[in-house]
């Protein structure tokens, strides 16, 4: 068993990656919901208009900030722990945390089907470590 002093930073590292990735994904999804269907915007205002609608959205900017934080947390984690532990653990837990956060913050209808899908993918991604 790993000593607590060694275990805690690993949990904290994975937690930081999962939390920042979830915040980034939720903000990004919220921004796109606020902007509306990009295909329709592109039909009306072209690709530059659609790109402008995205990059001038505040939530999108905040989402990019959190995804960048997640990326640097991942780099930090990889610098201290093995990729085979950090990568699948963070990716699989993010599926579950995203489902929970989407239900709470985006009011998405996360029914039994979606929970099952998230848990199956979470388990599958975790198995990719072996």
């Amino acid at each position, binding site marked *: 068993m790993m000593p607590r002093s060694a275990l805690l930073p690993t949990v904290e590292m994975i937690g930081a990656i999962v939390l920042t990735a979830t915040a980034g*994904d*939720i903000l*990004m*999804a919220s921004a*796109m*919901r606020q*902007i*509306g*269907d*990009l*295909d329709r915007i592109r039909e009306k205002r072209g690709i530059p208009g659609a790109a402008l609608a*995205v990059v001038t959205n505040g939530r999108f900017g905040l989402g990019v900030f959190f995804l960048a934080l997640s990326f640097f947390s991942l780099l930090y984690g990889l610098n201290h722990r093995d990729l085979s532990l950090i990568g699948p653990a963070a990716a699989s837990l993010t*599926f579950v945390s*995203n*489902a929970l956060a*989407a*239900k709470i913050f*985006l*009011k*998405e*209808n*996360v*029914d039994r*089907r*979606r929970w*099952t*899908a*998230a*848990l*199956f*993918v979470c*388990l*599958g*991604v*975790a*198995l*990719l470590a*072996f």
Partner: protein
Amino acid sequence: MTFRRYLVLAVVTLTAAFGDAFLSRGMKALPAVSLSHPVALIHALFSPWIAAGILLLIGFFASYLTALSFADLTYVLPATSLGYVIMTILARCWLHEHVSPLRWLGLVFITAGVGFVARGPSWTEEETSVPALAPAMEEVTS
């Protein structure tokens, strides 16, 4: 969900898998990069495989945002996780990496998860928005 929207989800899946595989192919062809010499990473950007990988990942980000504009996050993430399956097949067949039986089992779980979510609705309608009825209601009330 229209055919065009399924196509966007397919582009998200394929660009993520091929983008990562191209980056891996490019980085393996380079000598080991040390963090004490970060300039080597900038030099890596000019490798054709890495440049192609970055272009594909830009395509991934654009198609991912497009998908989020018409489908829920809890639909897009599991639906596009087939990228892990494609990535593993590319790693096995193209990069000649070893894939253990447990990894293949993981791919079975991922595929099952995709199957679950793909059979359900892709979008949660907001309770307050009834855009199609709004103009008619204004005419009636004025």
